[in-house]
């Protein structure tokens, strides 16, 4: 095996090796996606976020427009406050509803944004007023059993839409 043949094969090997790494990074992984694009932050608070995870997608009409960046518990009203990072290109109306959905029965949990008709748009740091919490299976089942027990036709399966009421004295920035 002479030297130039070895050099050639090693060169080919290293080239396809790096090609494989690039393939994994770009085609398989999402190296050049939303996390790098400029965006702004919105907040939303929920009774219950269910199985929502960090970096879960934020979708509008099924299109991914952002990611969940942070989740914390509001110590005063014991609600979950979720920070969303939305792609700069997309603006949402002030009366947008944020709801926590599951794709399929056992799929991933994501936040769905339904825009309304308000002419005013949400800005960086704004809070989404209307939110719909996650459906918790246990509550669903207990509600179903409860309704069954009381002989009723079954109550509402979905959690009611909740408006974020500002408690007296609390000021928004």
């Amino acid at each position, binding site marked *: *095996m002479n*030297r130039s043949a*070895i*050099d050639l*094969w*090693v060169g*080919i*090997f*290293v080239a*396809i*090796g*790096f090609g*494989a*790494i690039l*393939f*994994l*990074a770009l*085609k*398989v*992984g*999402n*190296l050049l*996606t939303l996390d790098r694009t400029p965006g702004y932050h919105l907040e939303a608070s929920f009774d219950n*976020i269910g199985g*929502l*995870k*960090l*970096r879960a*997608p934020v979708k509008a009409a099924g299109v*991914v427009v952002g990611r969940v960046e942070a*989740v914390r518990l509001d110590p005063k009203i014991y609600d979950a406050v979720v920070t969303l990072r939305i792609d700069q290109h997309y603006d949402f109306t002030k009366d947008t509803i944020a709801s926590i959905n599951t794709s*399929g*029965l*056992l*799929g991933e949990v994501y936040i769905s944004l339904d825009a309304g008709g308000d002419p005013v748009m949400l800005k960086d740091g704004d809070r989404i007023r209307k939110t719909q919490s996650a459906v918790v299976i246990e509550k669903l089942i207990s509600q179903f059993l409860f309704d069954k027990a009381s002989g009723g036709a079954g109550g509402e399966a979905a959690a009611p839409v909740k408006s974020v009421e500002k408690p007296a004295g609390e000021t928004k920035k």
Partner: protein
Amino acid sequence: MSAELTAGIAQLLRRIGGTVTGAASKLGFVSRFLLAVLWHTPGAFRRMHLTLREIYFAGVLSLVIILMSGLFVGMVLSLQGYETLKRYGAGEQLGILVALSLVRELGPVMSGLLFASRAGSAMTAEIGLMKTTEQLAAMEMMAVDPLARVVAPRFWGGVISMPLLAALFSAFGIFGGYIVGVPLIGIDAGAFWGQMKAGVDFWPDVTNGIIKSFVFGVAVSLIAVFEGYDAKPTAEGVSSATTRTVVMSSLAILALDFVMTVFMFRGASVV
């Protein structure tokens, strides 16, 4: 207690102590060996053609087994995975299943094991044989340090080849998964790639896979060159050193994999 029993227990304790101190001193020796190899690295890179030659023997010649294994593992993963996923109506998630399994775990670990048994054992046998036929001693007497000329190039050849081989394993595995998933099983190609792209993050998934394969490369190459250099200069000595390389490398890969996985992916599913 009878005198024999106490003597027997004392003997057992002595042997346990001896094994532990023996293992500890061997670990110390291996660490010094690693430092010596690293120290001679500039020499290895000055003789670039030597290192290139070792990349050829360790990497290029492992390509066939790595690519074929990757392909088959990906195909089997796809097949088995789909059977389980479709029970929960999650058949479309096949892409993510195959990709994450390969990139995070199977790629680095399996290619590491294959590399250890193919290239690692070859390195050990080569160096051990050179020791047996006094070629290493001849080199020393000619004022050429065998660590710089024989050991370090092989070490770096292994370390450079491993991450590339692991990436190729994963890439071919994903391709194999695609072949089984889309044309054969009938999953939508867009769903396959789309779900995969959404679910596989460059960091931590791909990068941690690369880090793992790099660590495995260092471990396997170090064990291989050490066992060869340390082998008894007889036929059985070389053959038992070769076996030890494969066994120790495999154990090291699996143990390191566990430790690294704990650190890397522990936080992945935490909110």
